[in-house]
């Protein structure tokens, strides 16, 4: 550990320090607004500082983390998403009773854990990052202590995430026992060198895949998703859907491209089955839901399936496709849950279909933004989701994964059905005789966040060139 490697870690240190400072501030005096602003500025500074290591990347810092442009890109994405989640949380928490300040401490710690995952090249940093992220998420999910559903979701998440962590640990132990190393690169080398792959090694990888599959919420490890999405406070749901999954996906992509999943039949087959099952299960079950948060939960399962198609397509185009798709998915998902957040009242989150019926008349802008987000999820032009889906399909076609691509397309058509269902509800009139649900006042922060997300969505959808350039630069060594 030298002074140079310390400069590489500045962004991470700033986020960690911000969480400590916030904690200290809370112990002196509780002030929601001050804590909120402190959090935002900490994240902004950390994001700005990402340019510092960008120039000297790639560089190893100890054996645990590799600060390369890949890691910095995803770290930036995570910090930006956390910034948005924090901005959405402020008006949401203001409406509710109880202490709000600790929320931001947890959020910062979770972001730190997630960003460590993107840079991890060692089992130890993988596990530390993952647990830092997950433990904060238990508390965040159950943050609204007066709500039964929130607590239920928290407990459910705790139990399942703990089980999946156990799987990962066991898997790591098996791999270590076989190969005697915990560094990704060395694992790849020794696994390739070994003439016969013993059962323990394959079992070890399989258990790691299972554990990570839980975090990604891909089928068949998706059971917790709808309940947690439904029960968690809306901003936390946004965080789980984007930061938590995005970070783990970045890790999976790095881990399995170092280990070369394409050269390993068994692992490739496992991922293919998972991708197909996630696409179909996510979309088909979403058709049966009436709760908007649950629909979005199942939709996110299917989106992870789409991402896996890009992941399975090898090559630099695939890495770029994943990066673009994840960015588009972050913007879209944050926007969609942002709408859910700003429509939530003091008593409950806006998750029933009735909350959205006729919204276009009462809140034309919010309805318009939600429509744009849903179209983006469905991959319709003018939105970021379109270019993302295009990229994923391109990566699949380039690698000749025709079966997966055709399944993806069938699923896009199925998916349209439930996105359109919500959109139609937005524009129909409230039921005969029924009063339109009163809509809470739009806060200034909420409005600003939604407006900027939708501008970003359109910009990425119409003029994606700059982002593609950035991604190409960051993925070139990958």
């Amino acid at each position: 550990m030298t002074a140079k490697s310390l400069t590489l870690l500045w962004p991470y240190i700033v986020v960690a320090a911000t969480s400590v400072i916030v904690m200290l501030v809370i112990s002196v005096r509780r002030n929601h607004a001050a804590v909120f602003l402190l959090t935002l500025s900490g994240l902004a500074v950390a994001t700005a500082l990402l340019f510092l290591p960008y120039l000297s990347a790639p560089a190893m810092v100890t054996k645990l983390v590799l600060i390369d442009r890949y890691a910095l890109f995803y770290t930036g994405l995570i910090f930006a998403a956390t910034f948005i989640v924090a901005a959405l949380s402020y008006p949401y928490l203001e409406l509710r009773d109880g202490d709000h300040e600790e929320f931001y401490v947890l959020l910062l710690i979770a972001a730190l854990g997630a960003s460590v995952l993107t840079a991890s090249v060692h089992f130890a940093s993988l596990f530390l990052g993952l647990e830092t992220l997950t433990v904060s998420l238990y508390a965040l999910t159950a943050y609204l202590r007066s709500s039964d559903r929130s607590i239920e979701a928290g407990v459910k998440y705790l139990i399942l995430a703990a089980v999946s962590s156990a799987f990962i640990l066991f898997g790591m132990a098996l791999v270590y026992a076989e190969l005697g190393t915990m560094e990704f690169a060395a694992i790849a080398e020794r696994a390739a060198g070994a003439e016969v792959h013993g059962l323990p090694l394959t079992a070890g990888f399989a258990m790691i895949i299972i554990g990570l599959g839980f975090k990604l919420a891909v089928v068949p490890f998706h059971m917790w998703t709808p309940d947690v999405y439904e029960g968690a406070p809306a901003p936390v749901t946004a965080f789980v859907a984007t930061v938590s999954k995005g970070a783990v996906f970045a890790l999976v992509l790095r881990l399995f491209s170092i280990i070369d999943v394409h050269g390993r039949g068994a692992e490739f087959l496992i991922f293919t089955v998972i991708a197909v099952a996630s696409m179909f299960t996510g979309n088909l079950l979403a058709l049966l839901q009436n709760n908007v948060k649950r629909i979005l939960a199942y939709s996110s399962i299917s989106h992870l399936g789409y991402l896996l198609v890009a992941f399975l397509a090898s090559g630099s185009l695939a890495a770029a496709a994943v990066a673009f798709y994840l960015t588009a998915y972050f913007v879209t998902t944050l926007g969609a849950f942002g709408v859910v957040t700003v429509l939530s009242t003091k008593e409950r989150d806006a998750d029933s279909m009735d909350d959205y019926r006729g919204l276009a008349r009462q809140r034309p802008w919010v309805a318009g933004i939600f429509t744009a987000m849903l179209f983006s999820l469905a991959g319709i032009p003018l939105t970021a989701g379109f270019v993302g889906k295009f990229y994923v399909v391109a990566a699949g076609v380039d690698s000749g994964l025709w079966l997966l691509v055709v399944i993806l397309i069938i699923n896009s058509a199925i998916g349209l059905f439930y996105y359109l269902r919500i959109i139609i509800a937005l524009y129909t009139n409230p039921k005969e005789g029924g009063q339109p649900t009163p809509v809470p006042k739009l806060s200034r922060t909420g409005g600003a966040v939604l407006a900027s997300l939708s501008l970003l969505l359109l910009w990425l959808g119409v003029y994606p060139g700059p982002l593609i350039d950035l991604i190409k630069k960051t993925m070139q060594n990958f």
Partner: protein
Amino acid sequence: MILIWIIIIPLIGGLLAWTLGRGNSVRARWISLLFLAGDAVLAVYLWSRHAGRAGLINGPWLVDMKLPWIPQLGASFHLAMDGLSLVLVGLTIFLGILSVLCSWTEIRDRAGFFHFNLLWTLSGILGVFMALDLFLFYFFWELMLVPMYFLISIWGHENREYASYKFFIFTQAGGLLMLLSILGLYFIHERDTGVYTFDYTLLLGASMSPAAAFWLMLGFFVAFAVKLPAIPIHTWLPDAHTEAPTAGSVILAGLLLKTGAYGLLRFVLPLFPDASATMAPAAMVIAVTGIIYGAVLAFGQNDLKRLVAYTSVSHMGFVLLGIFAGNLISLSGAVMQMVAHGVSTGALFILVGMIQERIHTRDMDRMGGLWSLVPRLSAAGLVFALASLGLPGFGNFVGEFLVLSGSYRAGIPATALAAVGLVLAAIYSLRIVQRVFHGQAKAGTTLADLSTRETGMMAIMIVVILWLGMFPQLLLKTAEPALNAIPCCVAAEQPAPVKGGRK
């Protein structure tokens, strides 16, 4: 730049109609009309400058412009216009203006948003007719769906939700298959030349194995056949046409169906000449089935709007037949039929809309005897019923005649069966006249006849359809250079065409 403006003007008009027209529907209507008129001026200007001339710049293109868009992917903002595009752009703007006019009193709820959607759909369609970059084409192709979906799902009739779902999912699924083919072509071309590009003019020369070409062609074909619509993927059409508001039906029948035919002419035949030749017999069977099936089902309908919708299936069968018969005469006929069908069916939908506005039903059992009540409306109805049955003097006759005489060369049985479709067309068209306009009056005693606006609309449409029938040469000449550039035409004009031969 003029091509970009043709697309942008409706976009701006739509935004203005929405923002300024909130709560003031008359303003929204005038804004839309004004901007479409501006577009029309541009189109007429292009026509007067270029019509009938072969391409001056490169190949058949009259106007050609290319801006960088996403160079990282090889996608550019490449628009170009040849005679075929020009004709269809003209049709788009013409029907666009009429659809604003025909919703003047029909749409009262959220008129600003309605016109926004209307103009954005038109803009997407205009883009489809001019895009020469496959990425851009796909972009516009999808883009025109969304506002159309809103037109059906918000302002449609009783069963609008179901119809709009079905419309959107069918076309979107077809579109995604086309996306696969576009990407397949993109990567095949890249492997050959090392250049990533979506540019049509560059992809034209891509060489590939016959099997690959066939599959890629099939992806495009399915997407366009859904739009066209061809049997058996036409089932979205009767629902969507019936449930859409009048303007929506006009645009659907008059323009969206044409994008499918245009795609076949612009992409399927030139990009995959051999594979299209392989496909031709099957496509012609599909076409003839569609002609007869559509006509028979049209005869069985009681809902007037649904009847007109099924006649579209029948008429568009002629277009498909003409395209895959693959000689200059049949292709000219297909283009003529596209335009004539756009005008005549558009007019029929507008008439159905007018009738529905007056007697609040589309059920033919509750009509009858309208001639004595609304003579002007009924006269217009008679004219377009006759146009639809292919009476000489109307544009439809020219189109169908050219298609049949062209397809006679390609296959006599198919031509004979298609000609049966003409007889059936006469039956269902005359049935409309009899059941709606003749007989005992059932719908009250007094109804308002056509207003000045409505009379004007009908007069213009009658003039246009007659002009197409009497003086088809101008339109045919405009489209001819573009059609001549299509490989199958070139092959057919040679004295001894080598089967499936390619340079």
